[in-house]
């Protein structure tokens, strides 16, 4: 026995049937309406840029790729391997293994230095807590945001990579820009 829907039956309201002369006319009208908006904006000029030939300038406070610093006068690393950045990191992407300085061939200013300092960039959320936690201003967030790579292991940045002056490729936003 077929099912009787009873009072639940709802009639579907249908629009005009597609096709035919009326349909073609409607389509043309809607297309022209859209194009009006497009051509209306042409006079305003372009807002997109030609990335990667051109880059968006960033604010000075922008938090991009990290940098480890050295003292300008002595060349010693500022990082003493205290691991506070690793403790502060909410993404758990920093790994520090400390070691003791050799007094003859010092690496850092303090008693200890970071023998291993790694940041897993694929996990980093660029929150800047590591920078805030650092008692020696040894780690700061730079401006570079072009970090894409072809495999994950290349995204683990080592101490040597972080200590190097990164190629300047990110323009800073000028005053009032």
């Amino acid at each position, binding site marked *: 026995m077929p099912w009787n829907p009873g009072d639940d039956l709802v009639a579907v309201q249908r629009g005009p049937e597609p096709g035919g002369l009326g349909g073609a006319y409607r389509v043309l009208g809607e297309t022209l309406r859209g194009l009006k908006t497009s051509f209306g904006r042409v006079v305003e000029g372009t807002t997109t840029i030609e990335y990667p030939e051109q880059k968006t300038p960033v604010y000075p406070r922008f938090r991009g790729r990290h940098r480890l610093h050295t003292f300008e006068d002595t060349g010693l690393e500022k990082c*003493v*391997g*205290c*691991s*506070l950045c*690793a*403790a502060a990191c909410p993404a758990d992407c920093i790994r*520090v293994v*400390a*070691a*003791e300085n050799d007094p003859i061939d010092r690496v850092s200013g*303090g*008693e*200890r230095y970071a023998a291993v300092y790694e940041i897993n960039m694929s996990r980093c959320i660029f929150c800047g807590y590591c920078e805030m936690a650092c*008692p*020696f201003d040894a780690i700061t967030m730079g401006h570079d945001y072009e970090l894409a790579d072809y495999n994950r292991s290349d995204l683990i940045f080592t101490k040597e990579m972080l200590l190097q002056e990164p190629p300047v490729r990110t323009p800073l936003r000028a005053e009032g820009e």
Partner: protein
Amino acid sequence: MPRPEINEITFVVDGREVVAPAGTMLADAAKLGDVDIPVFCYEPKLGQPVGACRMCLVEVEGIPKLQTACSTPVRDGMVVNTETPRVKAAQESVVEFLLLNHPLDCPVCDKGGECPLQDISYGWGRGTSRTVEPKRHFEKPVELSPLIAIDRERCILCYRCVRFSQEVSEDYQLILHERGADTFVGTFDGHPYVAPFSGNIIELCPVGALTSQAYRFRARPWDIEQSGSVCTLCPGQCNVSYTVRDDRVMRVLSRQNDAVDDGWLCDRGRFAYQSSYVDDRVTEPLLRDGGVLRPVSWERALAEAARLLGKTPAGLGALAGGATSNEEGWLLRRLHADVLGSRDFDSRSGASGPAVSAGLLAALDTPEAQATVPDVEWAHSVLVLDSEPVDDMPILDLRIRKGVRRHGMRLAVATSRPSSLDSIAEQAVRFAPGAGEAFVCALDAAVGGIGDVAGLAAAAGADAAQVEALGRMLREAGEDVVIVWGERLTHGANPDNAARALLKVAGRLSLLDDHAGAGLLQVPSGANGRGLREIGLLPTAGPGYREPAAVGRSAQEIAQATIAGQITGLHLLHVDPVQSFPERGLWEQALHAGAVVAHAQFLTDGLREHANVVFPAEAGAEKEGTVTHPDGRLQRLRPAVARPDGARPTWQVLSQLIAAVGGQATALTSMMVTSEIAEAVPFYAGITHDEIGGFGVRWQEREAAAAFPAGETGPFALEDPRPAASPNGALRLGRFRSVWASPEVAHAPALKFLAPKQRAELNPDDAQERGIRHGQQVTVTATGEDGSAETIAAVAHLRAAAPRGSVFLESGLGAESVDVLDAALVHVNSDPARPA
């Protein structure tokens, strides 16, 4: 003194009524009301408080000035305030004062993150500093010992380390130099602080002044995990906590268990973990191929081991070392007794004679006669018999010292070698090396007041008047007497007689009836000696001290039978008999004669030369299973880190061996072996890992203890003991094994400097007769029965306390060990090749 009765009192802290035991210090009692009073110098483990840091000042109503909560005992009706403005101001001032000279180098300090000074500065300090003056400066960091670095700038002069050295370990080495702000911790003449328990001061230090050299800059508290287990390096079985970073043990901390270790740890337990990360550790199965041990696959090694053990027409022998867990011992026993039908296995490390019979073992280990470790501290008197606790079971040494110092316990020491406890002992009696049996017979006569004390004492090489005095002291000291006796007492030629004599002494002092606080406590020669005995890994006893159908061969007989060709296969579990048994020459021949299958962490002398198959064994932190403490406490080993790549757990290897020789391997997990043991040993019935838990459970306190078999009961008739050899121009040879003589110490980089060198301890008069001076090179020569002479070189070490007519040499040292000499008498001469 017996434990005092504890009354409860009620006092008020910060408006809360709190019930606390009378006499508790306020700092502890306040915790019962959830009130935290900050402390630096206060540590109940160290005994009496000193009130040095002033951090714990509180206001007590009725007393006008602020009081130190650490040294004020609570009284009934006391009203204490810890949060008034006066207290707050005092706490802030004290923190500020302590920080005056404390450098703020927390980022480089190893203590940072687990530092009480940091925590208390945050919790109770002002938050800002008003200091503008320069701080005190010291050279930093300085080596206090090869194990400990001291940074004197960070020290807040809480006295904890000094009190530990002076009042707990009693090595009296650490002191405070200078006065006022110039004060610093050091040893009196600047020598390194080397002592068996020195590492504890690292854990005691409330700031980063004392740090571990081995752990220096290795990890931060947020990088690590703690993993609780039990140390299996000696019978003390201290509870430890492994600090793990990146699946690697970084340090070992004590895990306080008052019934076992009182919160202390010896340096061997603390630093030997390093030996599991050295290159010469065995990490894969090795097979002798063309005379050289080469790595092979597990399948090949198992097949080869099964061939060597399974298809031998003649006998098989098995030995288990001290570090063997109950599970491994059980599977070894199953493999040999049930599958291969051999009864020749032994687990008594370093024993030369036959084993004590099952009935006497049961009589000695009966729950009624068992003393616990805390009993040692609270007894009226303690007799240390033929054992050197600091070498055999180091943690017991601290317990004995605590009893004497804090509870007025009376101590007597009866050993052949001068003991480190002599200075605090009321009676120190010496007997001839190896004459333990005769000495206990003499002691029995002295305690009982009947028999020929003089004759027996002479046989033991002891002074009769001293033995009489010792007997009198034990009789009259009080009802709680604990006899701490070393297993080596029963390693002689007639162990049953020694055991009977000991039981007679215990009976006369009424230690054998069910009287808590008194009894016998054995110091086994292997770390898990008691557990292996109870699961029946002895030639004379089955599981649960059952009488075996036939008595098997003891270790020495196994060696002799192997040389004679009656035994063709030897199975060595965590033991190298060449290193740990007295007759080195005999064992070398035996290992050479038989096919050897071994489970080992390191290739020690005997294994390197003679083993046919070596399976890698786990290090302590990698092990799973249970062990039994000398007082019957079952404790659980939990793996803290993974095994090296490719290694398999030893219980699994044994299980696979059982299958490979055609037996039925029933155990799929270590826990299943535990339940097999619980079924086989009646007084372990129903024990599970859950019940053992983190702090262990004494089987004597469980219901199943009623199933303990009745041992031999008296009256015991004693045979005439064999008299000690008369020197007759020569010297009696005594052997001792230092706490540092172990492969773990030899391999741990931090401990290597402690590895002992052979020395001949003798009396200055004996030395003078032979023209030997202190520190001189000497040769020690023993002439065997067949006229062959063995000689070892040693450095003369003159000790006024050494008895005349004896010389003591160290065992467990490899080729220069005293184990090379197989005689009771030796000649000591100055080395002609190297004159003084």
